[in-house]
């Protein structure tokens, strides 16, 4: 016992161990001092740019290579090509893993997020139904459940994407499309189209889609109000704005709602 204690004390006192202890203590002290200096810069770096997704599981070797090597874009691109080859084989776990890997390595391009959401929401339910026996065998309620599960998974992915790209119109439009086409949730889709339209650079069709979804949801008065507020803001010379189409829809809604002629919408510049 005493011999062991002596040996242990001897080890503790060895020069190299003392050196290592000095090094660790020195570096720790330096780190404490420098952490106060770097903290504001670190916060601004994290706020300004999307870093690697730290919370994603299954990043694997590709992510490690990208993190250490700096080849984020290149590794993500090659992983995306690999994903396509697996996608062609309709291998759901493989495709899902690579989709996650790509957006983990390089969350900067919106392209990856959008296509990940589309594959998850539109392709995966199809594959799952085929794997369960096909559309004629699998009951419709099961098909619907699978579709909804995948749609919700895609929406979760889009929510993560929005943390990296808060100003992306495309992400909100994609969200609205999935809510509309896969979940059949017209109210949620209308809200998402509204959020997309509020962002700078939103194309005019987004506003028209919101009106159409509101009309389909039975909220015709709201759709009419939306379009009458929208129409005066549309540039007449811009074909994409389609001011004539919007005016036509306003007239349709007024007819459907039985709006009297004297209270009907008058476009700016129209004769009294």
């Amino acid at each position, binding site marked *: 016992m005493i011999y062991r204690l002596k040996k242990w004390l001897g080890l503790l006192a060895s020069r190299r161990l003392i050196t*290592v202890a000095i*090094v660790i203590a*020195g570096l720790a002290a*330096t780190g404490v001092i420098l952490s106060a*200096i770097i903290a504001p810069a670190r916060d601004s770096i994290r706020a300004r740019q999307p870093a690697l997704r730290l919370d994603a599981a299954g990043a694997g070797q590709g992510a490690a290579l990208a993190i250490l090597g*700096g*080849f984020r*874009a290149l590794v993500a691109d090659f992983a995306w090509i690999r994903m396509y080859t697996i996608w062609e084989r309709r291998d759901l776990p493989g495709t899902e893993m690579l989709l996650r890997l790509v957006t983990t390595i390089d969350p900067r391009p919106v392209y990856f997020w959008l296509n990940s959401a589309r594959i998850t929401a539109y392709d995966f339910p199809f594959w799952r139904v085929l794997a369960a026996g096909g559309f004629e065998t699998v009951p419709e309620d099961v098909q619907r459940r699978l579709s909804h599960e995948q749609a919700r998974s895609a929406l979760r992915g889009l929510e993560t994407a929005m943390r990296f790209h808060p100003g992306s119109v495309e992400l909100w439009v994609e969200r609205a499309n999935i809510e509309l086409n896969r979940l059949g949730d017209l109210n949620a889709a209308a809200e998402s189209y509204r959020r997309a339209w509020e962002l700078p650079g939103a194309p005019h069709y987004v506003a028209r889609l919101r009106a159409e979804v509101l009309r389909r949801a039975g909220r015709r008065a709201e759709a009419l109000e939306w379009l009458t507020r929208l129409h005066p803001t549309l540039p007449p010379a811009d074909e994409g704005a389609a001011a004539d189409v919007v005016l036509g829809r306003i007239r349709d809604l007024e007819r459907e709602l039985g709006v009297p002629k004297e209270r009907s919408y008058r476009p700016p510049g129209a004769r009294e």
Partner: protein
Amino acid sequence: MWLIAGNTLREAARQRFFQFLLLLAFTLTFGARWLRDFNFGAPELKFLADCGFGAMAFLGAALTIAATAQLFFSEVDNRTALTLLAKPVWRAEFVLGKLLGVAALAAVFCALLTGLLSLVLAWREAELVRLLPDAVAPGGGVSHAMVALGGLMQWLRLLVLAAFTLLVATFAQSQLFSVVTGFLVLVVCHLQHLAQDAYVRAGSAAGLVASALISSVFPDFQVFQIADSLAAADLPATGDVLRVTLYALGYSAAAAGLAVVSFRRREI
């Protein structure tokens, strides 16, 4: 000290390894143009910049770690260190001279690649403007100041890495151990913020202590991504650049100082 630094640089530049890595990095940076067909997500110029900085980061790290360990151990193993230290040269001068030599080597590497990257970007940008005038938005072109800042950040990262590798080399018994540990330090420095986040999320006291220790002993290499853009509008504030520079120099100075302490306690 300057003499030792100059000799270290000359010796390193003569090595085939340095020439090979430089050639490889040049090929990768220049050849990224032909890899752009594989690009899906990022804008083309950003993709080219990522390839250039990737080559700088990956091959630069390999060069720094290998050169530091090799140049230090060649002096110790060949007993030239003994001859040198028999003259009026302090051990501190020897260690700092080695570090300055490797820092100069890394600076040459980063400067050459940053210059080449800038040329490749300017060339491709001009081509894009000619072929697709709408592809590059007004004011949305390549900011060469940003590219230069990216190069500077890569050099600072390599400087810290060199200092840490030298620190390990001063108490290591073999070159291989120093190289392996140098790469481990690189991994830890890149991933320490992940560990930090994981420990904080776990919420255990032991985890928090471990997190605090790791995050103070090892520098966080993520802060050198301050120039992760090509747009002039994204140029970081001068204060942030100075803070990151100070952070790198602080860690390098501390590691170099500790390397001197460690080397003074070493029997050659």
